[in-house]
């Protein structure tokens, strides 16, 4: 991060600015102009600052300047128990908190060597797929808004609101639910949950048709997105891109298919792949992904009644006892007290779990040292890695195209800076 010198922001000359920026980029030509885009620019989707080196309006070079939202999540988690650390993961990718929760919880469960019961796994799948749709809706709305298609934004947020209402129904909170817990769920889903989700499944396909009707064949949208920000599949792999950015370049790679977690190996779905590698390809990948998510939710809803009633692991050393037992059982009181003060102890070793979050591959690495607190937690967040490819994608394009490219990579700054 470039910091202002002294206590106040001093006025600096162009030469001084160049010297400062020189540590980030090499300026090739004296004729080129340096421009700072952000961190308050609305189309950078958060507090991202981009240093642009421009030749007229063409981008010669670009350096992302990040860290404005750095909150030290990884450091803070080392001082919290495994359960308490969960709440920090919600705040990283604030558009997909459920997916973050899942990645962390699966890593903790892997470290402990336990697995949650089938019902919990199905409910988790339903919720993360709903989360994927809601996250894609925000992406769709905002990235279309950047390209001056205002209407989609309003429609997309209407459906997202419905999903957030479902989250409020199950977790008590619209966004930062922390609903998944080690060994299962915080509580079972309420009775109305099934109706709400089924209703969503009924109306959502036609709504996706509506969005596509507004954008897919819209000549202005096509002009702004076709052949813009092209990256080949090989380059995308070299630059570590994941998610729709990788699949838009023709690489058939989805963690849900390749390394199935939860019950993804028991449901049928396709992985949308496009071969053009441009902004439009990433757009159509995500649009098709939403439909696939609906298919997954549908199958999970059908499997749910047969999955038993247990939504939590029957292990009092990991899962706190139900509130109702506290009045009758001394042991339950002891477990309850121990779990909420000291927490459970995880064995020594490393565990790494990758999941497919809406933005790409989300990896959680935990090193346990035998105590109740993790010795090291690390998150590989998809946005952080995808961001590094933006200079490659936007080389020799116009500033206006950069807006489309940032929108199409779907970055969330809370997740980049952590």
């Amino acid at each position: 991060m470039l910091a202002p010198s002294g206590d106040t922001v001093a006025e600096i000359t162009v030469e001084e600015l160049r010297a400062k920026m020189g540590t980030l980029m090499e300026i090739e030509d004296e004729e080129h102009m340096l421009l700072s885009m952000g961190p308050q620019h609305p189309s950078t989707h958060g507090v991202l600052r981009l240093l642009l080196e421009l030749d007229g309006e063409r981008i010669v070079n670009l350096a992302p300047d990040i860290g404005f939202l750095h909150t030290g999540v990884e450091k803070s988690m080392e001082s919290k128990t495994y359960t308490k650390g969960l709440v920090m993961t919600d705040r990283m990718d604030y558009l997909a908190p459920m997916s973050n929760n899942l990645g962390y919880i699966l890593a903790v469960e892997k470290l402990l060597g336990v697995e949650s019961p089938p019902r919990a796994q199905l409910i988790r799948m339903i919720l993360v797929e709903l989360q994927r749709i809601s996250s894609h809706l925000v992406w769709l709305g905002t990235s279309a808004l950047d390209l001056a298609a205002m209407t989609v934004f309003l429609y997309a947020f209407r459906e997202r609101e419905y999903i957030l209402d479902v989250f409020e129904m199950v977790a008590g909170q619209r966004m930062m639910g922390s609903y998944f817990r080690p060994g299962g769920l915080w509580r079972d889903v309420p009775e109305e949950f099934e109706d709400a989700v089924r209703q969503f499944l009924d109306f959502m396909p036609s709504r996706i048709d509506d969005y596509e009707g507004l954008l897919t064949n819209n000549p202005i949208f096509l002009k702004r997105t076709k052949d813009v920000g092209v990256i080949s599949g090989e380059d995308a792999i070299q630059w570590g891109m994941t998610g729709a950015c990788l699949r838009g370049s023709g690489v058939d790679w989805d963690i849900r298919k390749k390394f199935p977690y939860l019950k993804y190996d028991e449901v049928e779905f396709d992985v949308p792949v496009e071969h053009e590698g441009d902004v439009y390809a990433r757009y159509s990948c995500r649009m098709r992904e939403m439909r696939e998510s609906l298919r997954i939710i549908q199958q999970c809803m059908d499997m749910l009644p047969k999955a038993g009633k247990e939504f939590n692991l029957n292990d009092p050393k990991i899962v706190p006892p139900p509130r109702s037992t506290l009045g009758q059982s001394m042991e339950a009181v002891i477990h309850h007290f121990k779990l909420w003060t000291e927490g459970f102890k995880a064995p020594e070793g490393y565990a790494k779990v990758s999941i497919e979050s809406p933005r790409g591959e989300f990896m959680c690495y935990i090193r346990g040292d035998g105590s109740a607190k993790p010795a090291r937690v690390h998150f590989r967040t998809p946005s952080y890695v995808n961001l590094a490819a933006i200079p490659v994608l936007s080389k020799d394009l116009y500033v206006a195209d950069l807006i489309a490219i940032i929108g199409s990579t779907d970055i969330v700054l809370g997740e980049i800076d952590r």
Partner: protein
Amino acid sequence: MSQDDLVVSKIKEAFPEAVESTGDFRGELTVVVGQEFVHDICQLLRDDEDLQYNFIIDIVGDDMLPEYPRFAVSYHLRSMDNVHDFRLRTTVEDPDEGPKTVGDVWKIATWLEMEVYDLMGISFEGNNSQRRLFLPEDWVGHPLRKDYPLGYEEVQFSFNYDAIQGKKPYAGKKQIGDE
């Protein structure tokens, strides 16, 4: 031969002295190698026809205090064709003289190493873009190290506002302990 065994045997074959230990915890293969071999092993892993580790998922720095060597770096590698993940791990004795950069093997590695340098303070030989990434340019210390205090912010009331304001560690301000 399983993919796990294949990886280990290929590395052992090419670099007989490199492998210090191998571990398998919860179905994850970890290969611990000497720091000086990391770059060449990565090159081998990417280019070998049977291995083809063409994707680097992440580079993670670890502080193992009070153990010695104190630092460790884990490379999470993936072969997309063979659908296989594993962890290449190395211990680092002196964080100022860390392993050689693998930025020429996988382009993204430079960017991933920058994060390790900023937060954990392990520098990678040959990585020219090591700078403060998340933290302000003049920040002192590397927060993910175990000897770095967690820190907190004192609450300012009207009666002690100036006293606390005076000792707040703003970026760019001279702090106690600065040269």
